[in-house]
């Protein structure tokens, strides 16, 4: 009952004109971002995060910018299907599975049915997940209130281990990405000792450089402005560099500005017939809605594995699995319901535990910290005026997204015809002006562009960059929790892995941190165990390492 009344209050606030307007604008932006090949929710959220500082200042309401970004996230999940179906290119990785049957449907002349199926399945998936979220979030956050530093660190370890064990990328490169991201987060002033570290410009080095240039500080770029790395690496600088510059250059190179679009005619009658046809897709929609949510909750999993897994399960449990890949509407409904459901699921650990479930939620988490909020179990206790309007906005955004999607499909198709040579400079421009607007200095803008170039080069060699982005967000908290735990245990790591470690001298057993730590260890070891098993059976070790 308490949840019900809190939700009603939240819905009422989410329906206030400024929040509703932000949800509508966010959904429209998200639909565009999701529909454009090469851009996904994380690109949209990262590039537009600096714009929310302005929203925060204008509304003085921390929920308002979050409603805007969450709406972009939702919209992008809907929009991804549009290019998957009409162009055969997934608008985002979350819509990869949608191409399997969506594209054949379009080629068979059923693009309108595929688009409507995707929209309605997305709506159902998003709504089911929001209901789950409303039920689970307060319970999980109240359980998490008892978590101490070792538990929180162990959960973060689990998030990184999930990337290694289930990420599907090259393991050492994933590990490098995580370590690198965490290390970037340590640059600047140490919050515990207050001393600078890794700033690459301490007093001695400054003196040496100044002597080399004859004492002329103007000869050293940015010498006076920010003291080089002493302010640390700003999260947005890395995120916009990776997703606004690096990914865009990658997309330009991969697509070479050329895509072929399948034309389609959309009318109210055809939309209605497609909605009626949804009754054939109940199975895929149901599987996607439920499975997507629970996969989305997993730290570091997110919507992409959720949608791929749901497609696989829908196909596996189908009476006619051969029809999948040939234009089966159920093959569109399952991944689309799943990616929307998973995007809501990924917000659950972010808001209740402070641990993001996907790169996009990592950016959202960073945004919350910038707006002065502390994601984690206390959020539901301390800031209900933020939490419940946001949850209310999930319901509203879902309804807005399906209506806007169905109403403006022709407009999105028109936009998809926009040459990439117009879109690309606009995105580069937004990345640069957004970074400057966030930090008011050119040093961070240059650093962002350099990160972008680096990200592009590493991407060519299959280095996954999402773990680095997640690690930069979590790095400061992970270090703080680990150091405080080790301070408590006098440097004894048993505090993390042994339930019998006596933390407070009462002899109490602590199970959550050890169990989580051991699951993380097993996940990290899983690929090695699988590799050993396959080797014993005489299989190729190479296949294991890239699964």
């Amino acid at each position, binding site marked *: 009952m308490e949840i019900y009344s809190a939700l009603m209050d939240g819905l009422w606030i989410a329906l206030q004109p400024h929040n509703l307007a932000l949800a509508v604008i966010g959904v429209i932006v998200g639909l565009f971002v999701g529909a454009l090949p090469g851009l996904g929710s994380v690109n949209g959220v990262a590039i537009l995060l600096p714009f929310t500082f*302005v929203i925060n200042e*204008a509304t003085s309401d921390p929920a308002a910018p979050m409603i805007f970004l969450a709406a972009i996230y939702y919209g992008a999940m809907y929009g991804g299907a549009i290019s998957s179906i009409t162009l055969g290119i997934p608008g985002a990785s979350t819509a990869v599975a949608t191409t399997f049957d969506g594209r054949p449907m379009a080629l068979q002349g059923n693009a309108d049915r595929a688009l409507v199926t995707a929209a309605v399945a997305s709506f159902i998936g998003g709504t089911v997940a929001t209901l789950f979220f409303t039920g689970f979030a307060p319970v999980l956050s109240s359980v998490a209130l008892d978590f101490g530093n070792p538990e929180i660190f162990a959960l973060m370890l689990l998030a990184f281990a999930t990337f290694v064990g289930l990420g599907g990328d*090259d393991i*050492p*490169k994933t*590990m*490098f990405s995580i*370590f*690198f991201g*965490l*290390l970037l987060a*340590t640059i600047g002033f*140490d919050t*515990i*000792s207050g*001393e*600078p*570290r*890794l700033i690459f410009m*301490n*007093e*001695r080095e400054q003196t040496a450089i100044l002597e080399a240039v004859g004492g002329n500080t103007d000869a050293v770029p940015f010498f006076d402005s920010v003291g080089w790395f002493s302010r640390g690496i700003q999260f947005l600088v890395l995120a916009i560099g990776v997703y606004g*510059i690096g990914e865009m*250059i990658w997309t*330009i*190179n991969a697509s*070479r500005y050329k895509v072929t679009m399948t034309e389609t005619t959309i009318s109210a009658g055809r939309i209605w017939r497609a909605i009626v046809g949804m009754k054939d897709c109940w199975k895929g929609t149901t599987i996607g809605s439920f499975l997507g949510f629970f996969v989305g909750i997993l730290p570091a999993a997110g919507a992409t594995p959720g949608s791929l897994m749901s497609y696989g399960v829908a196909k596996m449990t189908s009476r006619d699995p051969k029809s999948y890949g040939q234009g089966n509407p159920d093959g569109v409904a399952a991944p689309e319901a799943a990616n929307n459901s998973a995007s809501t699921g990924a917000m659950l650990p972010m808001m209740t535990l402070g641990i993001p479930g996907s790169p996009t939620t990592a950016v959202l988490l960073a945004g919350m910290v910038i707006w002065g909020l502390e994601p984690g179990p206390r959020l539901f206790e301390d800031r209900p005026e933020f939490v419940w309007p946001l949850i209310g906005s999930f319901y509203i955004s879902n309804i807005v997204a399906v209506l806007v999607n169905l109403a403006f499909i022709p407009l999105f198709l028109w936009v998809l015809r926009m*040459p990439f*040579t*117009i879109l*690309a*400079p*606009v995105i*580069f*421009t937004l990345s*640069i*002006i957004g970074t*400057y*607007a966030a930090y008011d200095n*050119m040093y961070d*803008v*240059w650093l962002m*562009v350099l990160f*972008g*170039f680096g990200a592009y080069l*590493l991407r*060519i*060699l*299959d280095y996954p960059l999402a773990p680095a982005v997640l690690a930069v967000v979590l790095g400061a908290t992970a270090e703080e929790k*680990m*150091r*405080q735990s*080790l*301070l408590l245990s*006098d*440097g004894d790591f048993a505090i993390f892995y042994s339930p019998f470690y006596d933390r407070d001298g009462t002899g109490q057993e602590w199970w959550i941190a050890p169990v989580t730590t051991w699951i993380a260890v097993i996940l990290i070891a899983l690929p090695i165990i699988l590799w050993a098993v396959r080797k014993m059976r005489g299989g190729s*070790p*190479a296949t294991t*390492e*890239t699964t």
Partner: protein
Amino acid sequence: MRRAEFVTAFILAFLSLYLMWKSGEGPSWDTEYVHWSNTGVNIDGSGPGKGFFPFYLALGMLVSCVWIIVNAIRRTSPPSQSDEPFMDSYAKKMLLLVGGGLIGFLILIDLISMYAAIAVFMLYYMLILGRHPLLLSLVTSFVVPFWLYLFFDIVMTKVQPKGLRVIETAFYNPLGNFFRDQSLLVIVLCFAVSGAALAFTARAAARQ
């Protein structure tokens, strides 16, 4: 691609070693500090030192790089199996044109202001890389920075760099004074009119 895999892994391995060394540094004002002494797990009963976490992360990076190199030697990672070049001629040309354009964009910001640099960059990208019609390129490269100027500088008062002092005083100051005296309705109208001009030009270009 195989050579690039090795070269990158070696560069990153050396970076890791350098970061391990840097993690062990003390504050520049402490002349008695002994290198590495802040990387311990429990220093004088006050828990890990400030260098502990970065040192072991850099060590983790180094181990990962060694693993990547071993995989490359054993040809078990896709890039180390690939005979394709790291970048083909298109990719090199594209990186040079796009990357060069971006660097030029950043250099121009300090000289001719953020908005003029955006205009030049848009024009360069649309005309030279996109080969769009001149009129469409000109209108787009005027409208996009104009919208951004109205949004950031006028509506949200998030002031962007204005370039050399002469440009700021001769152009942006009077422009800012003019728009700040206008009502929000006029600003919205400016958005709409310039947007309509862009749409009209785009449509005309599409017909051709």
